[in-house]
């Protein structure tokens, strides 16, 4: 039995599930609004929510996509008892998560959120080229037109800011100095690119796509600013073996076995940009007929 932890109406999950059905593989889908209670029967542990109920030892593989397993937490009136029981419950929850994560899996609830700064540091250690970066509170050290800023957060959208419904924080080139200082911000050297590469990574395998937009001023800095008139060209690409080897090493260091990884190709160099574990990779992958959803379903 495959355990899928995801959110409602999540397209990637839905597509993978269609393949699981086609392959006749059994699965349980857990959604964000479920709260589980840990129970036992004949010395076996099972967990139960309003929608699902399963033994831990029934699960053969786990796909952590989004959201997470949540548990009911009981409180007790007596302070001392409560302290003890909180810890008691903590270890039970921890045991369930650890047990599930020790099975064959795609990503883990416990470390799915990646820290962009830490990832860049690790990437350097594995020998990948990384554009120079630093944190600063003013623009004193900024080389104008050669420096970009981008968010450190996983979610790059802001809801209902000023008069906008939803704003997306795109990578932005700095073209003027700011007089005031501001909240600590991530600055990075701007790389003149030939094109960008987005690799879907699954347990050591790379499905890479070149995202070509060099003919187009509007998409030069960040391909998410789609130009709908003449869309980018997304075509299959093979990263050099050396880059794949180093990136594989990075993913092992981070203990992540699935995600999409962004690079910039600039002449002979491949600059590593970031790893994303929750993003939508289907669009880019389907333009190359890679069948990433099928690959996930096969792996589980």
């Amino acid at each position, binding site marked *: 039995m495959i355990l899928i932890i995801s959110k409602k109406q999540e397209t990637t999950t839905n597509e993978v599930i*269609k393949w699981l059905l086609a392959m006749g593989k059994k699965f349980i889908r857990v959604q964000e609004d479920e709260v589980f209670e840990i129970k036992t029967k004949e010395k076996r542990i099972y967990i139960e929510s309003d929608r699902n109920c399963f033994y831990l030892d029934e699960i053969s593989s786990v796909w952590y996509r989004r959201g997470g397993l949540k548990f009911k937490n009981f409180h007790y009136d007596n302070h001392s008892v409560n302290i003890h029981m909180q810890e008691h419950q903590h270890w039970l929850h921890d045991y369930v998560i650890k047990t599930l994560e020790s099975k064959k899996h795609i990503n883990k609830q416990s470390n799915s959120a990646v820290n962009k700064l830490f990832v860049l540091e690790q990437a350097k250690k594995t020998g990948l080229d990384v554009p120079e970066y630093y944190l600063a509170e003013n623009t004193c050290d900024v080389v104008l037109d050669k420096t970009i800023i981008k968010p450190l957060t996983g979610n790059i959208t802001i809801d209902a800011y000023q008069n906008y419904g939803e704003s997306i924080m795109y990578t932005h080139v700095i073209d003027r100095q700011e007089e005031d200082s501001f909240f600590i911000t991530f600055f990075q050297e701007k790389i003149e690119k030939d094109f960008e590469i987005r690799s879907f990574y699954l347990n050591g395998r790379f499905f890479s796509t070149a995202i*070509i937009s060099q003919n187009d001023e509007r998409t030069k800095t960040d391909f998410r600013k789609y130009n709908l008139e003449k869309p980018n*060209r*997304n075509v*299959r690409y093979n990263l*050099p073996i050396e880059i794949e080897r180093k990136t594989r090493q990075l993913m092992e260091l981070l203990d992540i076995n699935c995600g999409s990884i962004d690079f910039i190709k600039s002449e002979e160099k491949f600059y590593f940009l970031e790893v994303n574990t929750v993003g939508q990779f289907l669009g880019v992958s389907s333009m190359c*007929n890679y069948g990433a959803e*099928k690959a996930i379903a096969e792996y589980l």
Partner: protein
Amino acid sequence: MRYFNLFSDILITKGVNRILISDLQRNYSELQSLELNNIIEELKSNSIEDVFALYDQESKEMLQEYLNFLVEKEYGFITENSWDENFPPLQTDFSDSSTISNIFIETADLMFSPQLVQSIENLGIRHLVIYCESKLSLMDFLTLEDTFNDSCLESIEIFSLYHEDVNDDFVKKLDEKCLRIYSLIFHKCDNAAFEVTDTFKFNLVFTDQHLKINSCGKVDLKYFETNMLKVLEAINHNSCLHKKIGIDINGNIKNCPAMCNSFGNINTTTLEEAILHEDFKKYWNLTKSGIQICKDCEFRNICTDCRAFTEQTHKNNDGLDISKPLKCGYNPYTSQWEEWSLNPLKQKAIQSYSMQQLNYDA
């Protein structure tokens, strides 16, 4: 030395006199000369300079123009020293998780039995096309939408008879309440109640033509559609019938409602049972490369291969009809389009179908 690299999502289909260049990313196709094709072929194994050396002074200009064209259209790019070998070719295999992806139902109303709805779910069907000869009320449409709430069905296209209740308000309500309808065609409409100006979630058409089930299968430039998945499917399978199932007005389960062969009736047979019939999938792997005339046509990868109405001239060893679709007026040997229904060579086939149609109506 400089080298020209053609992008892997640019598909070139060679016909007798011309080529069709399909940009599978930008969903666009255009006709070009065989001459351009020769140049593209030469550029695959020679540097740009070497190809230029092959041509005399006059032709060099033309060559330069073609090269500019290829680069401007972003069909490819130029590299120094060698081709960029890191760009592998597109894999043209086709995979689809559903057992059946399309269902085409000819029906008198929009009431579907729970059994049929369940079958649609079990087979993983994504697209539903309904052809209806009667007038449908707003309630009918809303009930239909409701029927497939929470199902794997993604899109619905409906052909139905126009009537006076179909006004602005009617369509606005549909737009508000329906998620899956992506195309609505009201036929036999002499006088549409309003101009289609608003942009709705779906594509809305009023036509004065009285569409019949045998109006399907027309081949024309305006119906061609360049779309990566469809092209990949066409390269590997029959572009109309692969993973398709049909139900005709009498409930007979077929490859499409206009085909003759029935694999049972929905009152007694489930769709799941019907597709197990040994002949159900017999056309699924018949590609255009196996169809007479079409196999030489530059449009073969973006064209629909109708098997219900054909010229009825050829059968292969397995008894499959491999004749060209009847309702195509294109001749790839002369590159001319003409009105298919007037072609003297097609009259016999046309007659055989209309006779069938008479029996069928009776």
